[in-house]
């Protein structure tokens, strides 16, 4: 019967996953897929290892000057040393904590400003060129000014926000604008106020965009924090890097950079994981 068509369609899509017993060909295909995935992981590990070995060998054989590059087997004791004397964890925490603050503030500020721009087409038209210039402007130029204006601690937060907030505004606003106007029309026909449209249609509809902004943001906030710490801080990985380079202890610089790489990797993965868990609900 015609009436059954939609229901049948659904059953067939659901049915795929619950196939009785896989055919040999399917089992072979699954094994092939798993092998491919393993090969990729293995190759990545080899690549990383090769880079470390190359670094070590080139420095040890004085092809490059170990004074300038340090090398892994020298970084490792420095790492342990820094860890033992207690300040590495403290520095890492300081950077992490400042990044988190900067990232949260710029996310909140970015969404709020994007909401204002969405609310008022006039505000958007007026502010658009300023935003474009502010976004293109190299914010690093503000480091000394922020240091004078905000002091050593708050200038770090200030840099993190300054670097990430404009792109957040633009990405989030584009997301708001990308909401299907018919969804808004639907809410209007049901009598929705502008505030209800914002909170019930535009914001929840923009969750995938917000998550994408989050991913861009965390990296940029970290850049801001490190740059801020270069100038002003007495703690943090940026301080460690600048301090290490000033006393020419490249071991310390390299250790801080490796820890920084790990930190940014972990933060990015955390957000990617969160995104994966959330975005499933929002895909059509």
């Amino acid at each position: 019967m015609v009436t059954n068509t939609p229901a049948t369609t659904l059953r067939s899509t659901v049915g795929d996953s619950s196939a009785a017993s896989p055919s040999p060909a399917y089992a072979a295909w699954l094994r092939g897929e798993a092998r491919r995935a393993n090969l990729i992981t293995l190759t990545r590990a080899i690549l990383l290892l090769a880079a470390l070995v190359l670094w070590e060998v080139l420095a040890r054989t004085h092809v490059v000057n170990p004074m300038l590059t340090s090398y892994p087997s020298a970084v490792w004791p420095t790492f342990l040393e820094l860890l033992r004397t207690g300040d590495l964890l403290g520095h890492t925490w300081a950077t992490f904590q400042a990044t988190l603050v900067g990232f949260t503030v710029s996310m909140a500020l970015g969404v709020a400003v994007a909401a204002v721009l969405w609310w008022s087409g006039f505000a958007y038209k007026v502010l658009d060129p300023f935003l474009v210039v502010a976004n293109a402007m190299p914010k690093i130029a503000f480091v000394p000014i922020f240091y004078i204006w905000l002091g050593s601690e708050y200038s770090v937060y200030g840099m993190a926000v300054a670097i990430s907030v404009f792109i957040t505004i633009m990405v989030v606003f584009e997301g708001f604008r990308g909401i299907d106007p018919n969804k808004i029309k639907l809410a209007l026909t049901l009598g929705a106020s502008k505030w209800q449209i914002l909170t019930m249609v535009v914001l929840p509809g923009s969750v995938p965009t917000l998550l994408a902004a989050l991913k861009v943001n965390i990296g940029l906030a970290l850049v801001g924090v490190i740059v801020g710490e270069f100038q002003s801080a007495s703690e943090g990985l940026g301080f460690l890097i600048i301090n290490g380079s000033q006393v020419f202890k490249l071991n310390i610089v390299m250790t801080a950079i490796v820890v920084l790489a790990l930190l940014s990797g972990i933060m990015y993965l955390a957000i990617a994981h969160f995104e994966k868990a959330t975005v499933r609900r929002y895909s059509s």
Partner: protein
Amino acid sequence: MMADTVLERPAAGPRGSSQRIEIDKVSLRYFTRQAEILALSGISLTIEPGEFVSLIGQSGCGKSTLLSIIAGILPPSDGEVRVGGKTVAAPSPRIGYMLQQDYLFEWRTILDNALLGAEIQKRDMKEARDRAVRLLEKCGMGHFLDQYPRALSGGMRQRVALARTLATDPDVVLLDEPFSALDSQTRLAIADEVVDVLRGEGKSVVLVTHDIGEAISMTDRVVVLSRRPGRIKSQHRIVFPSMPDRRPTPFEARGLPEFNEYFNTLWDELDVHVEG
């Protein structure tokens, strides 16, 4: 061709409320930098409580625009629309609007989608929930209450959209080409169900479509709009003497001899010619 016929229909069913829609000399003009455009010109039309009326016309004749005016999301330049004697000035819970596509919110379950109107209008949620569940069951979606829209086929999604439209118990329901996004088999099946549910609820209905067959098979009266500026060109009351004991379902109607007669008449009136 008929004058603005007043159609006496049996009183609305016990469940639903229904209201007369009066469109009184409605015109709409809008401005672009290049020109002033008259989209609708002096449209007057009365839809009786419980009556199903369709508006047909070629694309660009302003039929969807007229629907937006009835819904109160677009103010007319001249004239007014009254529902149950009261002027429509803004979107109102008395008017339900079903769009061309379902526009279900991906982040809400089927039940929560159907409850959108009640939430926006800050209704009593327990009562609204009971009503929405009953409507979803009636539309054959009772097993999907907690699913998300992505699990549903196009036809099922449009049924949920119908339940969402009716969940706030509007007096009149406006359908803006509600099946245009569906494949042809699903269209036929859904048309039967939608008409069945809407008649069961006793609603007044205005259907906008460019599908002549849909207009004839689903509604009591077909109103033909002219090209821009949209005016009422003619009206046709649809009756099926070959099935005297009851009203045929849309699917049955398509098989009756009167269907083809109406189709040919309307085809001539629409004056369709393909422009290259």
